[in-house]
């Protein structure tokens, strides 16, 4: 563990804005900044940096296809550890053997992710349920813990090369780290998730889905704000100079998401759509990649207009609620 002056990191971040695109929480959401950031739990998550709501992937111009050139590398700074984890979870899907997602991966490979530990987790956080927590380092090139005018840093070479090494952490820093970690973790509700994937699969036709899903409006709020939801749609748009092929966030909660050209919709109602959202995160994801597709950030709980609470749903389906 190292300790680096906050000032030094803040200054460095502004300098790096020349050669990097900096994304950080600002006015409540993660957005591109000139190196400024704000200490908060952002509403729009860290995924905005690597999978923006809208991006061009290629152009068709003068009879030729042009791939969209690579932009400057990304530094994602000041997000919570759960958002850093989320990006590593998205990466599992994007690294598909047959169809790797080059647009995401090229950004991810050159990018740097720096998170700040949550000393004060929120009431809707349940990240510890998945074996990680408010001080988790998974997916981060560095985890910073605020202490007075210093950051205590658990980082890798990539981070120290850019931001400097500061000094060796003291004994009391390490104690502070452990204590703050313990205190934060104790505040978080743990939802039992043992064998959840199999349990869900065995209940796929259970009438309980109708009950659970009834109040869902099938809007896109939960999935757009979810840091691990990565579904997108691709559309070709006419421009005066040719065609721009772009991708946009999409959501399995929308009825048109699965609507086929024939008009048939294999997920016709809220029941099938909600089931898909839950099954994808808690059954298909562990089956395919060995990890749950949820970090327990609680955004879908907070921002759902009808208070659909995924924690309650997991308790019911996992047999503990």
């Amino acid at each position, binding site marked *: 563990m190292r300790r680096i002056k906050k000032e030094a990191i803040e200054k460095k971040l502004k300098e790096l804005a020349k050669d990097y695109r900096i994304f950080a929480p600002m006015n409540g959401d993660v957005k591109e900044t000139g190196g400024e950031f704000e200490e908060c739990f952002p509403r729009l998550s860290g995924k905005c940096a690597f999978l923006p709501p809208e991006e061009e992937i290629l152009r068709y111009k003068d009879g030729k296809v042009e791939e969209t050139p690579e932009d400057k590398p990304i530094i994602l700074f000041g997000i919570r550890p759960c958002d850093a984890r989320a990006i590593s979870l998205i990466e599992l899907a994007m690294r598909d053997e047959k169809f790797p997602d080059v647009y995401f991966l090229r950004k991810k490979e050159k990018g740097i992710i720096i998170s700040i530990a949550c000393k004060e987790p929120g009431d809707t956080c349940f990240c510890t349920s998945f074996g990680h927590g408010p001080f988790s380092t998974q997916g981060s090139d560095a985890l910073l813990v605020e202490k007075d005018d210093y950051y205590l840093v658990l980082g890798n070479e990539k981070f120290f090369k850019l931001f400097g090494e500061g000094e060796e952490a003291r004994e009391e820093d390490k104690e502070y780290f452990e204590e703050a970690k313990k205190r934060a973790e104790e505040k978080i509700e743990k939802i039992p998730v043992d064998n959840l994937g199999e349990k869900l699969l065995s209940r796929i036709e259970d009438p309980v889905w109708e009950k659970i899903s009834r109040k869902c409006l099938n*809007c896109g709020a939960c999935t757009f704000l979810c840091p691990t939801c990565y579904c997108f749609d691709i559309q070709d748009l006419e421009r005066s100079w040719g065609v721009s092929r772009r991708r946009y966030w999409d959501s399995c909660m929308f009825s048109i998401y699965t609507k086929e050209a024939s008009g048939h919709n294999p997920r016709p109602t809220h029941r099938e759509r909600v089931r898909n959202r839950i099954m994808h995160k808690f059954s298909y994801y562990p089956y395919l990649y060995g990890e749950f597709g949820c970090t327990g950030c609680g955004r879908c709980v907070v921002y759902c207009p009808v*208070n*659909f609470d995924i924690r309650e749903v997991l308790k019911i389906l996992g047999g503990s609620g």
Partner: protein
Amino acid sequence: MIERIREEARKAFEEGKIEILIGFGRGTLRATPIFIEKKEDVDKLIWDDTCWINLATYLRRFRGKKTGIVAKGCDARSVVALIAEKQLKREDVYIIGVPCQGMKNEKGEEFLSCRYCEYPTPPVYDVLVGEKREGKKENYPDVSEFESMPPEKRWEFFSEEAKKCIRCYACREACPMCYCEECFVDSLDPRWLEPGLSLSSLQFWHLVRAYHQAGRCSDCGACERACPMDVKILYLTRKLNKEVRELFGFVTGLDPEALPPLGTYSTEDKEEFIL
């Protein structure tokens, strides 16, 4: 109040008036919609100032079933508007009307829609629980304020609000009147507007959504409360509601027989806005 609602709900089940009841139950953060199918469960019903949702939005899912709904003034007006548009049959809906005390946000502030609410008491109901409440007669002071801004300022305000939108359509889904089989934003052929978050697309989406509500919106405010991005959208529908009132003398959701002005015509219609 809660006891009266439960009592009327129980009675409605016992007398065979309803097969299912849409009401509010205790959620984890605030009141949450619940769907009750047997009278033993009516004790799950609650009533407080976090009953933000307009429950009328769920009614179409239960068409053909005798459906009860616990409705505040604006919710009941949406039910009436849905009946007027032939989306529901009056005899299929059993309205347990609740004179509304006004809804509040997490900070305890009353919502705009409630601050100026003219019809806290449902104008149409099957049974009313509690004393009637008087509405306010202020005729959209918030809209007048917006109207008094110079055009550039209004454009700027509109653009700044539209920019915050991520097109999650929570506002659309929360609205009982947004029931089109295919929303204009989802149509690919013709493609009325582009996907994505360009300013012009967002402006287009916000304007057309509001236009489609003219004379149909009950000012419930459920759309704005549903928005995760805190986008102000009510001022647009409220402006149109004010216009519809001034031009056609029409108020949404008071009479199940009255067609909304844009769904009908009369030789008396004012024409001053037509070129």
